[in-house]
């Protein structure tokens, strides 16, 4: 089962390495990881997508808690939540391909954020599935580069992961 784990971490040197190291040492999967400081610069917020059975996920959560710099951990996929990922795709766009790509981007509510005579760079935000679907939809259009941020997640409603 896929799980999205949110972590509040002390924004200190070595803290992220320790967290990532934990996954390597104990053989847990990281499907994606994104991390940046929060409004409080002493804290980083991570969204970590992983998969495993219930027992593995429980261990991941407990082992994360054990790290001294981890302030809070929550498996946000256990309840209603919102998940978004940012993708930048650079494609070859020549001749009538240009119209085709533009239409596809519009359908997915993507934006073309950079243009050259032969390329487009499209920005798209959504769930991982939506981003996958867009890549599928590009069909024969030659993809030059794909950059994905990995999911960021937040719980719905009044529930928060904060100090």
């Amino acid at each position, binding site marked *: 089962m896929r799980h999205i784990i949110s972590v509040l971490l*002390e*924004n*200190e*040197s*070595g*803290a*992220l*390495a*320790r967290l990532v*190291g934990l996954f390597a*040492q104990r053989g847990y999967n990281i499907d994606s990881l994104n991390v940046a*400081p929060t409004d409080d*610069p*002493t804290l*980083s917020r991570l969204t970590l997508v992983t998969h495993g059975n219930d*027992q593995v996920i*429980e*261990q991941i959560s*407990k*082992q994360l*808690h*054990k790290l*001294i*710099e*981890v*302030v809070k951990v929550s498996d946000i996929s256990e309840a209603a939540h919102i998940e978004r990922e940012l993708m930048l795709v650079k494609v070859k766009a020549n001749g009538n391909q240009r119209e085709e790509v533009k239409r596809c981007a519009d359908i997915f509510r993507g934006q073309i954020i950079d243009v050259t005579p032969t390329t487009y760079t499209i920005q798209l935000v959504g769930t991982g599935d939506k981003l996958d679907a867009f890549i599928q939809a590009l069909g024969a259009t030659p993809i030059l580069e794909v950059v994905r941020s990995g999911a960021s997640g937040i719980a719905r409603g009044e529930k928060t992961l904060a*100090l």
Partner: protein
Amino acid sequence: MTSQTKPDDKSAATTKAPEMLSGAAMVIRALADEGVEYLYGYPGGAVLHIYDALFQQNKVKHVLVRHEQAATHMADAYARASGKAGVVLVTSGPGATNAVTGIATAYMDSIPMVVLTGQVMSHLIGDDAFQETDMLGISRPICKHNMSVRRPEDIPYLIKKAFHIAQTGRPGPVVLDIPKDMTMPNQKFPYQYPAEINLRSYQPKQQGHAGQIKKAVTALLAAKKPVLYAGGGVIMGQAAEELTELAQLLNLPVTNTLMGLGAYPAGDKQFIGMLGMHGSYEANQSMHHADLILAVGARFDDRVTNNTKKFCPDATIIHIDIDPASISKTVNAHIPIVGLVKPVLTDMLAVLKQKKKKLDSAALQSWWQQIAQWRAVHGGRYDNAAPLLKPQYVIEQVAKITKGDAYVCSDVGQHQMFAAQYYPFNKPNRWINSGGLGTMGFGLPAAMGVKLNYPDADVVCVTGEGSIQMNIQELSTCKQYGLGVKIINLNNGYLGMVKQWQDMNYESRYASSYMDSLPDFVKLAEAYGHVGIRVTKPEELQPALERAFALKDQLVFLDIHVDPKEHVYPMQVPGGAMNEMFLSKTERT
């Protein structure tokens, strides 16, 4: 990520202006303020300022080992005996990497330790400078936490933080990496040692959940075939007294893990021995057939459970542990209680006393009868008829002459299991061994750490001719500090534990388990300035032990030649249930 290590706590401000100290002086002063008496270490370039500061005071005493690994084991063993963190100081690069095995050893057994490692100057970090190693990177997976000093003025805070983390919650080693420029003698900063530390991200639980404790008591009282399974958490959690009270209040059978020996007195009739791979027949049978297991400060290690799929099929499991990650990790716990074992057991006792109920006495009676039958099956027997000395017999004789009251520090191998099985530990903190990592070379430095801190006690190092050679150089340290350890070298001429597995699984093909070219240990001991005694015949043992223990303050190396063919039994059948065991070379359950 930014690289701030900001003290987020300060002790109550005092009115007088704080003293100005160099980083190096602060390191030593902070240790003194923490109450540290001994520092175990070895000097080198990156820590010379600290050594100079050490030289200029007399509160903290330094013990110079002959190899950094020994410093870590000495500090570790002190912690195991006293419950307080041991402290190590080593230089950067090779000094730090030599300490790695000792850090990992302490980590696996949850032993509090503070390891100060030197580092190259901050501006050289990352340049592959002379004696630079990324000690934070190397030690990350084998310590509870590690940190580095980025501003000299943070040193008192970071040292306090290191002790706080090492000694609270589930204890463990903490590494503090100190770049040389943080300790410059001529740069002085205000010194104040924090009274306490409060970390928002680290708030280990103390008390157990009251509802869970009630639930546990109810389940316990309903049990017909209970077993109390106690581990190292009871020793380090200083809860042997509470555990014993609970066991005796309810007349529970008690088994201890390798790490938990001494948590319950071995001489008591309710003690059914150690459990697990080389556990007693009765302990493993009782576990397998139990309807309730009360696990206290134990972690269902694979050397205990054998095949977890076949583990204790009928048991309701109550698991008390300070570390939530230890609960339901390998074996599912039905009633988990997270908290320090001491307050949890105290609370359980209070609930029990209030309820004034006991277990069904008829059921408990027949359970004890069943256990008595199991006891009669093996009962720790061994064949003592042969002309050669048996290692089990030697341990029994050591127990006799020390009245079962010595600190027994063991190495790793067959001798370790014989010591665990045949020395009756009646007190906690007396059995000092590397259980989790199984570090050969642990025994002698461990015995040294204990002897230094408990000079009046009998301190025995039980070892083998393989293990002792992994830190034999420490005989020199023993001479320098007058450490009168008694070394019981169960010399079987083989890496016995390896040989046993080769006998059982590889048709006795002894691939590199024969120790060729052994030194003359008696001469070796004498060369280091100690007393060496060789024992090759059974009748020589008694007088040799008497002489050795009569030489109170001297290190005596007893090189005792024992039967090389002996195996450790009982032994669980690999992949089987708890109660599937070999009982001798020819019998199996």
